[in-house]
């Protein structure tokens, strides 16, 4: 099922056009450029979906992008998720979960000791019973783990791994799930950062046009 997606996702969502100065700067890191896209393809158009289904991947991505409250990436992945599932119930349930899961990070506890003064308490997100039934216990466990990784990764523990194993995630599936959430944390920030830089270049171009 390789690859229908030819457009570079970071360029697409950051609004970077070929021929622009940011496009040329990105092109100088050609390995980083190509492999950020290959990472996206490895996670969303994989050769092997026996450990994690494509619908599960897009559900987690729509959730992760949604709780980051970044409109461009949230819209992109939520559309992908809607296209990967039958019916609209799961899409509506996921949207409601995103609304209830938003908070501010990073927070969490350090190993007990001198750093404990920096411990910050925050939301421990759990999917309620009704939503669990609509999404499946397995997907609900993945969303809870994704929330932990996005907002308070320093609270991660063997107990969190155990919850995933009990919900039907194998060790290999947990590696893929962790890469998925961690990759998105990178991709979403790269897009947000480049979009901000791109906007500042627009301002500067406008200013010099006016000055000229």
């Amino acid at each position, binding site marked *: 099922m390789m690859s229908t997606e030819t457009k570079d996702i970071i360029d697409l969502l950051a609004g970077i056009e070929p021929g622009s100065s940011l496009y040329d700067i990105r092109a100088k890191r050609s390995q980083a450029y190509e492999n950020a896209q290959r990472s996206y393809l490895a996670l969303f158009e994989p050769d092997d979906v026996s450990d994690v289904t494509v619908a599960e991947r897009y559900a987690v991505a729509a959730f992760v992008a949604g709780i980051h409250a970044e409109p461009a990436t949230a819209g992109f992945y939520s559309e992908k998720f809607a296209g990967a599932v039958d019916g609209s119930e799961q899409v509506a349930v996921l949207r409601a979960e995103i609304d209830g899961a938003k908070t501010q990070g990073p927070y969490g506890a350090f190993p007990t000791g001198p750093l404990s003064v920096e411990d910050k308490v925050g939301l421990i997100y759990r999917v309620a019973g009704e939503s669990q039934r609509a999404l499946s216990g397995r997907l609900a466990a993945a969303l809870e783990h994704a929330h932990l990784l996005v907002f308070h990764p320093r609270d991660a523990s*063997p107990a969190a791994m155990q919850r995933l194993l009990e919900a039907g995630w194998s060790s290999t599936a947990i590696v893929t799930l962790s890469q998925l959430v961690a990759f998105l944390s990178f991709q979403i920030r790269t897009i947000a950062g480049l979009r901000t830089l791109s906007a500042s270049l627009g301002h500067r171009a406008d200013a010099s046009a006016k000055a000229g």
Partner: protein
Amino acid sequence: MSDSIVVHAGENQPVVFTQQELGWLPWLDPLAGAALTERHWAGLVDRSRAKSAYFRLLVRDPEILEARTKTDKDIFYNIADGLPRAERELAAAATSRYNGCIYCTSVHARFATVHSKRGEDIQRLLDQGVGADLGKRWNAIVKASVALASTPIAFGQQHIEELRSAGLEDAEIVDVINGAAFFNWANRLMLSLGEPSTVVDA
């Protein structure tokens, strides 16, 4: 259920940020060296990475590991243009300090010290946190990294302006964004798949 977690005694867990070399212990079983196929070797990129429990765990999904490793190397090691290596490592260390990854911070604080020769400033970042005063240029890089690591993302025009007024060109600002963004990937793997140890593997 065939898979299970690996629990460590935790008695050698570091409790402060340090530039000392640390070990890392996985909470899930890495693949055994003898079980690695050609597909896995391609995922590891460098054969020497098979010695690391971290990479032998990640290689359970070889395609994403390969693409991630190549992204990582180009962002940090391709110094043909753009930001000096020391300051890419500073962005990585600041991001890791803010997210709370003691292991990642130790590695990239050490690299930042080696490349900048400013070990005392790096140690102040570790001891005091991301608010430590490291001079105008480094402060701008740390602040931009922290804003980008926050959720929701707090990176805005004021961070671009501060980086520019500290002397960074656009290509260097892209390196700050790439380096800081990448450590939001790395920190989440290191923090959630295992734990650091003051005992370094033999």
